[in-house]
Every structure is written in structure tokens, then in C-alpha cells.
């Protein structure tokens, strides 16, 4: 046995330079992978910013799109910004309460088998391609009634729901059970324990989850393509008609042959990108803060 060990060690010693070289090569490759990953982000953000620069002016936010512009016309994307605001706001108003309720049910009330099967359904819903959700909402609301902001917002809400429910569930599970037990032990009914003790404790995490979900759906194009895309260029807050949105505007402008359209697409993309990055960063910051709070309260 000992002899065997020695021979193995000797052989290893002979091969050591080779083994070290292989190790160094593979380590170098993982470094390279990380550099490529970061470089891709930098390249994409940089090329959006560089091309957006020329079109980033006040017109972008104060002027609407012009249909069939002849010659150089001052136009912007105001109608698309407003439409996106309405659509995302409505989608959040639909998905957030339902998502929180689902999470409450699954963490506080449901039996284990119900919890795991509904979690699976949420994962499946999360995996359904956005374009299929678009077809679904088209068949549900648009056929016979025409496109509307509500239909678009509902499609976005379908994508948002599993994200919100999932993240809120994770936060609710982080709330220490000692808090629940203390509250229940004092005779506080379960529903008041959930609403007055557990939810406030988890508020930071819930907001983080909501912000991340908003960041995810703010850039979604596919769900709006069949539900809220045939639009006029008038600015409108009325969701009973189809509303223009930033992603759909970028999609349409990117396929135009006119370079002026391209530069507005880049500008829209830049604003959208900055909005999303800002949301993700603040969510990250919020998450770090609330994690600190929960861990100290423990």
C-alpha cells in the first residue's frame, strides 16, 4: 500500500510540470472567459451610447413621432415614452398584488405538495416564450376587440407575475420564523401576523423584487407586438387604445432604411438601457441594505 503510494507520488512528481502547465492553461482560459463576458457588456453599452449621442436632445422627450416625415423634421419619441410609462405602470399594478398574494399563500398557508406544484407552474410560466404570451393575449383580448394598452399591459403582467411571485416568496422565507411564532404566541391571528409582522419585515426585499421585475419587462417588445403596436403618433395616456412604447418604437425604427430613424432608435435604446441599468443597480443596493437589516434583526 505504502509502496503503491510512493510510486503514485513519484509518477505525479514526474508529470508535475505538465500538470502545472495544464492547470495554468485552464486558469488562463477562465480568465479569458471572464474578460470576454465583461468586454461584451462594455462593447454593447459603448456602441449604443456612441451612436445615441447625436440624437440625445430635448426633442427626443418633447416631440412626438411624425408619420411619413418628408425631409428633416424635428421629431422625438415622447409618445413612446409616455406609452411605455402607462403600459409598465398598468402591468405592475396588475402583477404586483397578485404576485405578492401568491407568495403569501405559498409560504404561509399552502401544504408542501401544493407549494411545490404551484412553484413548478410559476417556473413553467416564466419559461413560456414572450412571443407565445403575445399570441395568447392576442387570442384572448385583441381578436374582436382590437389592440389596446390594457391588452399590452396584461401581456407584460403575465411575464411579470412569476418573477414577482418567485422573488417575494424567497424574501418571505427569509423572515425568521421566530417572529411569526412570537406574534402567534401573543395571540395575534395568523392573517394579522402575515400582514402586520411578516410583510413589513420583508418590504425591502419585495420592493427589490418589484424593481427587478419592472426592469425586466420595461424592455420587452414581443408581448406588445400584437397587442399594442398599431398606433397613431399622437401622445396618449388612454390605455383603451393601443399605445406606442419605447421597445416597439426601437423595433420599428431599426428596420427603417433611413439613418435619421436609426439615430432615434439608438437614442431610445440608450435611454431604455440607462433606465434598466439604473433600476437594476438600485435594486442591488436595496437588496444589500435589506439583507443587512434582516440579518441584524435576527
Amino acid at each position, binding site marked *: 500500500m505504502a509502496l503503491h503510494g510512493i510510486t503514485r507520488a513519484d509518477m505525479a512528481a514526474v508529470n508535475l510540470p505538465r500538470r502545472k502547465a495544464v492547470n495554468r492553461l485552464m486558469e488562463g482560459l477562465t480568465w479569458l472567459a471572464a474578460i470576454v463576458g465583461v468586454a461584451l457588456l462594455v462593447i454593447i453599452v459603448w456602441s449604443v451610447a456612441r451612436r445615441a449621442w447625436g440624437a440625445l436632445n430635448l426633442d427626443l422627450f418633447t416631440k412626438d413621432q411624425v408619420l411619413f416625415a418628408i425631409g428633416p423634421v424635428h421629431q422625438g419619441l415622447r409618445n413612446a415614452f409616455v406609452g411605455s410609462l402607462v403600459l409598465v405602470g398598468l402591468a405592475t399594478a396588475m402583477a404586483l398584488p397578485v404576485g405578492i398574494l401568491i407568495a403569501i399563500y405559498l409560504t404561509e398557508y399552502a401544504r408542501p405538495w401544493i407549494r411545490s406544484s404551484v412553484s413548478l407552474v410559476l417556473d413553467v410560466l416564466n419559461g413560456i416564450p414572450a412571443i407565445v404570451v403575445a399570441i395568447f393575449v392576442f*387570442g384572448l383580448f385583441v381578436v374582436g376587440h382590437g389592440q389596446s394598452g390594457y391588452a399590452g399591459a396584461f401581456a407584460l403582467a403575465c411575464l411579470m*407575475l412569476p418573477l414577482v411571485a418567485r422573488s417575494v416568496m424567497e424574501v418571505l422565507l427569509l423572515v425568521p420564523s421566530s417572529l411569526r411564532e412570537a406574534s402567534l404566541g401573543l395571540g395575534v391571528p395568523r392573517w394579522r401576523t402575515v400582514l402586520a409582522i411578516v410583510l413589513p419585515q420583508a418590504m425591502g426585499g419585495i420592493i427589490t423584487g418589484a424593481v427587478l421585475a419592472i426592469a425586466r419587462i420595461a424592455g420587452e417588445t414581443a408581448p406588445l407586438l*400584437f397587442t399594442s403596436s398599431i398606433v397613431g403618433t399622437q401622445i396618449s395616456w388612454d390605455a383603451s387604445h393601443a399605445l406606442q412604447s419605447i421597445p416597439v418604437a426601437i423595433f420599428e425604427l*431599426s428596420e427603417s432604411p433611413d439613418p435619421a430613424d436609426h439615430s432615434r432608435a439608438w437614442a431610445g435604446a440608450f435611454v431604455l438601457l440607462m433606465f434598466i441599468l439604473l433600476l437594476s443597480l438600485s435594486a442591488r443596493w436595496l437588496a444589500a441594505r435589506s439583507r443587512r437589516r434582516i440579518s441584524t434583526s435576527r
Partner: protein
Amino acid sequence: MSAADFSTDVSAAPLGGRRIRLGDLLLQLVAGLAALASVVLVGLIVWKVIAGAWPSIDTFGLSFVWHIAWNPVLGHELYGAGSFLFGTAITSLLALALAAPLAIGIALYLTELSPRFLRGPVTALVETLAAIPSVVMGLWGILVLGPLLHDHVEPALHSALGFIPLFGEPSPSGSSIFTAVIVLAIMILPIVASITRELFLGVPRELREGALAMGTTRWEMIQGVVFPYARGGIAAALILGLGRAIGEAIAVTQVIGGGVFIHWSLFSTGDTLASKIAASYQGATTKIQVASLIYLGLILLVFSLLMNVAAQWIVRRVARRQGVGTNRGGLG
């Protein structure tokens, strides 16, 4: 005094008790209904898509799935998903083949090699890549990446490796399947990277240290401990990444160029299931054409359902076996 307090408490209890049960019942009912609604929603999606595709299912039957045709000319209408299925398979599989080693490399870097001060920032940057909307990726793909590949990379690859049918003549337009592959690879890279990173973090420290103490190099430790431990999870991560690539419509529509044919050249245009729907839905006029597009969506839906259930099943099985939670397994 204290006795009086007691007695009011006791007398209040039954009254309060009824109210307590009511509030609990209400919250449980409302929350339960919300959970039920999510299940109903998935069922409704499946039902609506099947119902929408029905005229086409009725006309073309199951052979629609592999039939290669898309002829919207009135009176000669004939539709089939064959070429789009091929386009979807080739784009998503190649994208996964490009992204997977890179993603696993990034995950290894972040868990095994990165200096502590770089770990947080690099993780954040890679996750930020996932936050870029697909329409922005598509815009970048059609106006920056596409022309670059078309003018420089494709001719070079064609002249060097032209004997392989994959590297055919570059198409006259800037669009190509190749561009779509690259764009998809960039889009699924952060997804696969962040899932595999979590898996690698779950590998018990004593196993790593044990291997290193035996005198393995770090790469041998990764090969012998980290990979075997995370194998199931990596498979699940790859399936989820593939699912994302298959379902992506917008970015692919923008860069792939369109077309109904099967050919091996990556440098010509094509279509995937998702991109065909996104590109043609608006212009679809006849009932059977709309239904056929929805039929494409149905195929997509079936794929995504199968792949998600498979991935979740793997994740849950691995989590149960190891008794440690990845993010998802811990909840299951």
C-alpha cells in the same frame, strides 16, 4: 382590578375568535385564489394557443410540423413548420455551443479564481448583460454586428473553411443566421453563467479542500470535484439556456433576414419559429395563415414546456440528493 381585566379578556375571546377565523379565512381565500389564478393562466395559455391554431391543425394535421412550405398566395396556400424548426434548431444549438464553454469559464473564474475585490463587480457586470433588452441586442445586431460579420468575418471564414458546407457564400444582405447565432449566444451567456455559478458555490468546501490537500492542481480539483458534483445542475442550466434561445423572437427577427428553405450555410438568411411569428403576424391576412402562425407558436410552447419541466425535474432531483439548496431547489 386584575380580576376584572381577566374577565373582560375571557369574555372577549369567543367574540374575537370568530373575527379571527374570518380574517384568516379571507386572506387564505384571496391568496389561494391568486395562486389558483396562476395555474389557470398557464392552462388558459395552452388552451388559447391550441384553439387559435385549430384551423391549421385541422387542415394540415401533424405533418405540418416537418413539412417545408410557406406559401401565402391565395388559392395555393400551403404552410409547414419544417424550415423554421430547422432554423430554430441550428441557431439555438450553435448559440448554446458557443455560450456554454464561455459561461462555465466565467462561473469557474468567479467561484474559484477571481481575486476577492473583483468577484462582486464582475458578477454584477455579467448579470447586467442579462438585463439588456432583446430589442436593443437586435438593434446592435442589425446595425453594428451584422455589417461587421458580413464585411470581415464571413468572407474570411468562407475562404478559409469554405469546403465545410456551414461556411457558404455570404448573403448579399447584411442579415444572416450566423449573426443570429452570435446574438443569441450573447443573450444566453449570462443566464447559463449565473446558474452554473450558483451551482459551483454549492460545492462543499471540504470536498474542494480535501482534493487540494491530496496534491491536485486547481484544474484537477475542478475536474474531479466541482464538475461531477454540479453535473446535473449544469445540464439543467444548459437546457434553460437553450429554452431561452429557442423562444427569443425579437432580436432574431431583426438580424436573421427571413426565408423559407433548409440549407446548411450559416451565412445566408433564414427564419426560426419565433422570428417567423414576430415577422409575419402583422401582415397575416387569411384565417388559415394566422392559424398556421399560431401553430408555430404551439410548437414553441410545447418545446418550452418540455424543456422547463425537464430542467426543473433535474434541479429538484439534484437538490434532494444533495440536500443543499440552489436557489430554486430550496423552495421546491
